């Protein structure tokens, strides 16, 4: 008879066994994913302090691994907030541990990417990772770490403390991994270019394994406001979350409970809601039965009068910065940008920003150039499945005098406390009706702007041509009619030509 054995595995072990789903599918994707995950952590680390990021990335060749893959050392330095020394081992050596589990917008929503990169490096090279960090205080800490995959715990191989004489602040991560840089190169370079576009206040430096230096210089030091942590919005709660809030709440009645634990719920809204749902304001939330909790959740979703979430927990780029970034990296003749008001899907707030750029150095390729971003991360793979691409393809561009054979680039940026990615590898965004609608409305707005630009340009051209037409044809009409009528010389047309100039606008 068959015997089935049961066992528990650690979260590290789960991802070790299933690394495909986090984007570490093959040596090409892996090296791209590693660079990206670490750069994003560094950007977050600098932005949370509102410091213009300085990020230095170096990939260096270490040796051949197989016929097609090599061992590289990856080093990423930033000037970010730094990691407090006691958290360094867990932050870099324990899966599902970190600073990214709060309700605010951050790049690495899954809190997994950086550690997956280190885990992948360890699996393929068995070398420890080196982490150097300082929060800007008197000391700099250095750790050499391996991950104990079966137990999901860091193994500290070495730990050093240095005096921080120059007041350096930031984090350096260095580890080895197997990869195929040659194949990954185009995507990595594209990644830096696009990252520079939506982070125009960042300096990015990349030294590749051949020693080539790529530098993306900031065009501004203005930075968007960093996102703030926020309370959950009533439309987004589920039973589990309600239960957790009830467990921790110090408030003894429903009115206070609602006012203090939910986003944009004040005295008036809370009172109205309780009336709507027939719950006594004085009821102690800890006394709610399971059935009542379930009902509460449904009522919260049904109530129409909650205010939409505000954007304080989000950190969109803003129209100015988006414009700066697009002008800097694409050098177009014209650009229109638009930021939508905050919206929600399933209770998660999000903001869509779009830009459309025309002419200049944008190539004409028989199709739009599409740049997709989520929380300031460029999305480079699986374009066809992305909701933005679907919306762009479905739009009636001809209404706006725009056609795919014009030199046009379209940028769509979605920021959210929870971007609806379809995969852990953060490759494309799921097709949610709310998101789709916001993107479509944003695109319509910039499409109208580019239409005005195109129309205006056309109009100036047309006026110039108009006068030319009269000066060309009136003399001919005079000449031909005279010959036809058997007259010796054509009639005088000066008066007519003058009147055309005076009443310049008619007939246009």
């Amino acid at each position, binding site marked *: 008879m068959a015997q089935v054995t049961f066992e528990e595995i650690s979260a590290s072990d789960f991802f070790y066994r299933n690394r495909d789903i986090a984007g570490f599918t093959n040596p090409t994707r892996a090296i791209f994913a590693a660079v990206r995950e670490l750069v994003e952590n560094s950007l977050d680390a600098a932005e949370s302090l509102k410091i213009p990021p300085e990020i230095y990335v170096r990939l260096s060749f270490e040796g051949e691994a197989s016929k097609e893959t090599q061992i590289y050392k990856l080093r990423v330095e930033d000037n970010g907030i730094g990691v407090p020394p006691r958290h360094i081992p867990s932050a870099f050596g324990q899966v599902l541990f970190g600073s990214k589990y709060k309700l605010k917008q951050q790049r690495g929503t899954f809190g997994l990417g950086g550690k997956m990169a280190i885990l992948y490096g360890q699996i393929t090279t068995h070398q420890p990772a080196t982490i150097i960090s300082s929060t800007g205080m008197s000391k700099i800490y250095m750790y050499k770490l391996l991950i104990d995959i079966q137990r999901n715990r860091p193994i500290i191989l070495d730990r050093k403390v240095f005096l921080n004489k120059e007041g350096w602040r930031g984090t350096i991560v260095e580890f080895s991994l197997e990869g195929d840089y040659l194949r990954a190169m185009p995507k990595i370079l594209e990644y830096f270019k696009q990252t520079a576009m939506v982070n125009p206040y960042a300096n990015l430096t990349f030294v590749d394994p051949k020693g080539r230096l790529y530098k993306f210089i900031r065009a501004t030091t203005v930075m968007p406001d960093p996102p703030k942590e926020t309370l959950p919005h009533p439309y987004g709660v589920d039973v589990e979350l309600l239960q957790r809030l009830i467990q921790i709440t110090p408030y003894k009645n429903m009115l206070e409970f609602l006012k203090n634990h939910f986003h944009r719920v004040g005295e008036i809204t809370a009172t109205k809601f309780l009336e709507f749902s027939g719950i006594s304001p004085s009821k102690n939330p800890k006394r709610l039965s399971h059935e009542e909790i379930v009902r509460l959740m449904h009522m919260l979703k049904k109530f129409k009068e909650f205010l939409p979430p505000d954007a304080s927990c989000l950190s969109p780029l803003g129209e100015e910065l988006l414009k700066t970034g697009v002008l800097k990296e694409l050098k177009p003749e014209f650009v229109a940008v638009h930021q939508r008001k905050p919206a929600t899907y399933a209770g998660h707030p999000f903001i869509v920003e779009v830009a459309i750029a025309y002419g200049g150095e944008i190539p004409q390729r028989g199709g739009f150039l599409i740049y997709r971003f989520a929380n300031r991360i460029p999305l480079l793979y699986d374009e066809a499945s992305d909701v933005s691409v679907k919306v762009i393809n479905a739009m009636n561009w001809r209404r706006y005098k725009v056609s795919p054979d014009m030199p046009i680039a379209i940028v769509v940026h979605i920021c959210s406390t929870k971007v609806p990615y379809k995969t852990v590898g953060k490759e494309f965004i799921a097709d949610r009706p709310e998101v789709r609608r916001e993107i479509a409305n944003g695109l319509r707005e910039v499409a109208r702007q580019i239409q005005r630009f195109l129309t205006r340009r056309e109009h100036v051209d047309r006026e110039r041509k108009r006068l030319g037409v009269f000066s060309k044809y009136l003399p001919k009409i005079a000449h031909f009619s005279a010959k036809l009528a058997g007259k010796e010389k054509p*009639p005088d047309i000066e008066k007519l030509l003058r009147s055309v100039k005076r009443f310049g606008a008619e007939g246009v």
Partner: protein
Amino acid sequence: MEPKEYRSSIMERRKEVLASLGNLGAKIYEQIDRGFFPSIEMPSRSTENIYYDPKFRQYILGDKRVKRSARNIRHLKPFAQLVWTALFSYELTSQRKTSTLRDVYYSAQAYEMTFKDQQESNNIITDLETVLGFSREDFNIFPEERSAVFGDLTISYTVPGYEGKTLNLTSHPDGVMIGPALTSADFVETSADKVIAIEKGGLFTRFIEENVHKKFNAILVLTAGQAPRATRHFIGRLNRELRLPVYVFTDGDPWGMHIAMVIISGSANAAHLRDLTTPDAKWSGVWATDIVNYKLPTDPLDEIDMKRLYELQKDPRYKEDPLWQREIKTFMKIKRKAEQEAFSRYGLTYIVDEYLPAKLEETK
């Protein structure tokens, strides 16, 4: 036959054309000279202004008129093109030279009056026709299509170098080309008592070989597909001036049927012109009912054929005679079509020996 009268009519018409062109120039000259933007009015040729007139048994233009003004930037270029075309026509007609539509297109370049394409130049010529009420052949402008005629008719040329020379149209057994010279010739004499118009060249040659012109006392006209305007005008003259009944033989399909109809009632495109129709001409075959009765080899009607039938069914020209509706319905029912050559399955002479006499009798 009254040949004298018609000879002079051809020369008279030329004078009228020239005067009309000159007047147009004078009118425009005067307007400019008095300090006005010149303008021209003409009947609108838009579809809403085209009506079927049961009296004339052809399409005519209604009362709606359009104004082309040199004050309007969009009219300016076509206005200049129109005046140039009038001047060019004047020179052609007065020098008694002919020109093709293509020549007009190129000749404009000498005057920096470049047309965007052949279509644009053709449109302006149609404008001139509409303004003056003469057809382009009156201005000595001919398209390239060529059809032919054969039979006992003696004509007298009016073209330079041939004035007064005569030709009997049986003199070349391949058929005599209908070009500018023939179109402008006067009729002198004929023994024929009918005209048979034929769509296809092969059948035209067969008829000549089988002496249809003698056996049936007929003048044979090859339309070579849809009859060119000059040919329709020529058929009309045979009918009106020589009082000969006209019988039209085409392929048995909606397109052949319409070739006959255009000879009879003209096209909507020429609603601004008269004298291109032959209202008493008869469509003698190949009918849809012939396909059934004669068990002809057929091809299926395709989608485009069927679409055409539905269009024709609603066309007012097809409501004059119940024959048309009956044949359209039969086509729709049998969903097949047949060519004139299909009679060859019964032998090459069957069409002459059996079909033709039967149909001439039937549609007399």
